[in-house]
């Protein structure tokens, strides 16, 4: 019986249309992921109309291919331009961009690729073998458990920077405040809207993230290019030297070097799988958490932020691991763990398969076919990206004066294309200026962005818990899961403090 199902599933998964669809999705995903301003989610949303006319396996395969590909593709522009191609790649910038500036773009990209594929592949294996138990745990999560998770996540993120913990907390709080703009979900009344209906709708994630990370970087780079333009002669000599100095044969990632990163890769893959399986969290959080954990446990934490390959491997393994893991709650209980999972869920619904309790049981063959194509999809990512990487690496050597306007133009129109909102474009430019001010003032951007992402969930879970507990504080600690999260976090923090003291 089981063997028959597996044989049927394999037959579907390995049929030519399915293979072509997955391949197409992966190539498209890597490409749109690499282009800043066009996220994988956007591409997936745009492909949804075609899903109607396709069979289930190729449709889901194509979308998952885009998702997987974009999670890696995002790191290409993160490393090359310091701009996250997709929000999930935001953490990859922290070391990816310095690594490129240090003259090793090729090694950085390959570290990203191998870690992405490893994270993705291992998360798919987890999805296949322990989907149900993990989702059972995730399903036990109520508001107070989520609140515990959010609080712990914010504490971990805020203390990313050793020695600047106070600043980290202040930055996270500023990010949470930014996320408070808009209608209060519990009363419907606008907050910090100053009478504007646009502000009452809240600040959208895409323009804020692209603005803070990307537009601010572009603005500073324009400043530098403009300044250097006046020192033309020096610049040309410098450029010539830089171009001559870059020798791709010296910028190769050796197997031994990559093997040395195994702890970062495994930490990232494990973090990404767990974070991805929890509804509400997503690739961005997974990237930052993996980065933070790896940095905390690293033997050479001082190299982080200066182009450490560990700092690329961890967030890339982490964010790619969410692709498979985010399907765990979707498949088992119909709860999408992220925006991307919601789109995959919509595609299933369009195919007449309702994600939910009986999805796997009643669609055994097709679900196993999907498992199969998820596995070989990772291999496709590896092969196609390996072929494409040399071209992307060359793009990075282009003159900034040609690249910067194009990237900014893409970010502007890409943001507009997401929700057709003119206000989002103003938010994008405003967030860019804010990012410049923050960089100049020495305020770290990552905790602000994370505060912004986690703020709504933090508030929702806090206030839901207060309603459920009739405003009793003890309600927060009467749950075994929540209490364990606090205890584990406390133990880890004490360990951190103890380790860093030595």
């Amino acid at each position, binding site marked *: 019986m089981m063997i028959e199902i597996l044989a049927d599933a394999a037959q579907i998964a390995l049929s030519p249309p399915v293979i072509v669809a997955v391949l197409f999705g992966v190539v498209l995903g890597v490409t749109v992921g690499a282009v800043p301003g066009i996220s994988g989610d956007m591409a997936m949303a745009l492909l949804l109309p075609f899903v109607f006319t396709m069979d289930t396996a190729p449709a889901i395969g194509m979308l998952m291919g885009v998702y997987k590909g974009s999670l890696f593709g995002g790191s290409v522009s993160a490393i090359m331009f310091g701009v996250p191609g997709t929000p999930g790649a935001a953490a990859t910038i922290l070391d990816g961009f310095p690594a490129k500036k240090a003259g090793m773009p090729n090694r950085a990209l390959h570290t990203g690729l191998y870690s992405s594929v490893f994270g993705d592949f291992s998360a798919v294996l987890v999805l296949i073998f322990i989907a149900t138990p993990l989702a059972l745990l995730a399903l036990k999560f109520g508001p107070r458990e989520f609140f515990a998770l959010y609080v712990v996540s914010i504490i971990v993120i805020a203390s990313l920077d050793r020695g600047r913990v106070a600043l980290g907390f202040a930055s996270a709080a500023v990010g949470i405040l930014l996320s408070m703009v808009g209608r209060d979900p519990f009363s419907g009344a606008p907050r910090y809207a100053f009478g504007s209906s646009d502000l009452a709708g809240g600040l959208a994630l895409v323009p804020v993230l692209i603005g803070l990370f990307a537009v601010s970087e572009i603005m500073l780079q324009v400043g530098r290019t403009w300044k250097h333009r006046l020192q033309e002669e020096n610049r040309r000599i410098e450029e010539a030297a830089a171009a001559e100095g870059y020798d791709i044969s010296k910028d190769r990632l050796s197997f031994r070097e990559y093997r040395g990163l195994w702890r970062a890769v495994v930490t990232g893959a494990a973090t990404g799988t767990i974070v991805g399986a929890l509804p509400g969290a997503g690739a961005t959080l997974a990237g930052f958490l993996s980065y933070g954990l790896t940095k905390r446990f690293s033997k050479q934490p001082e190299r982080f932020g200066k182009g450490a390959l560990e700092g690329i491997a961890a967030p890339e393994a982490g964010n790619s691991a969410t692709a498979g893991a985010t399907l765990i709650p979707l498949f088992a209980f119909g709860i999408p763990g992220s925006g991307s999972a919601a789109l995959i869920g919509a595609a299933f619904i369009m195919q007449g398969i309702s994600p939910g309790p009986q999805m796997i049981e009643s669609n055994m063959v097709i679900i196993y076919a999907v498992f199969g194509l998820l596995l070989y999809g990772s291999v496709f990512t590896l092969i196609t990206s390996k072929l494409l990487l040399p071209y992307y690496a060359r793009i990075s050597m282009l003159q900034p004066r*040609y690249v910067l306007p194009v990237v900014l133009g893409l970010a502007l129109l890409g943001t507009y294309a997401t929700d057709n909102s003119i206000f989002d474009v103003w938010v994008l430019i405003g967030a860019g200026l804010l990012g410049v001010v923050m960089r100049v003032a020495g305020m770290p951007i990552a905790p602000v962005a994370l505060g912004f992402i986690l703020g709504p969930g933090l508030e929702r879970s806090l206030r839901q818990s207060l309603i459920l507990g009739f405003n009793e504080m003890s309600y927060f600690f009467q749950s075994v899961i929540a209490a364990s999260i606090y205890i584990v976090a406390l133990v880890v923090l004490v360990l951190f403090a103890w380790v860093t003291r030595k």
Partner: protein
Amino acid sequence: MNTPPETLASRWARADRRTIILAGVLIVISIVGLLHVFVGQWRPSPGGNPWMVPLICYLVIMPTALLMIRGALLGAGEETPDEVGGALPIIATAVWAIAFFYVVRHFGLVTGTFLSMVAAMIALSPRPRSALKFVVPLCIVLGGAFWLLFTRFAPILLRDPWLF
């Protein structure tokens, strides 16, 4: 001999002023925010209130900002700031972004992209005249690529434009 006792003035002289200014701004933000929480017009709701999380944020920002000032006065290491080419190019970039979006929406996608890209690339070139030969064909191609991308692949909502 004895070193003179360190005064606040001498500490200030070598302190990390950038951090102190940032902390000062954060303190001002939290004071304004707290005032707004207590005297502003809010609609109460069950489960805490709409101002609960903002209140927590301000109460986190205030002491952490004070800690930052303390750290700066005690001489915690300063990191080198990002290199900034002055305020003018940054403002110019923002203005360019607004202009680009305006031109694309009012003149048309291809025309707008072409004009904005040529202007930006020429402005950033060390030798504008000789760059034209390369920039103009490049921007024509870019205009086409943007048109393809934002009308066929990820269509954006455009008014009926004058030109393309």
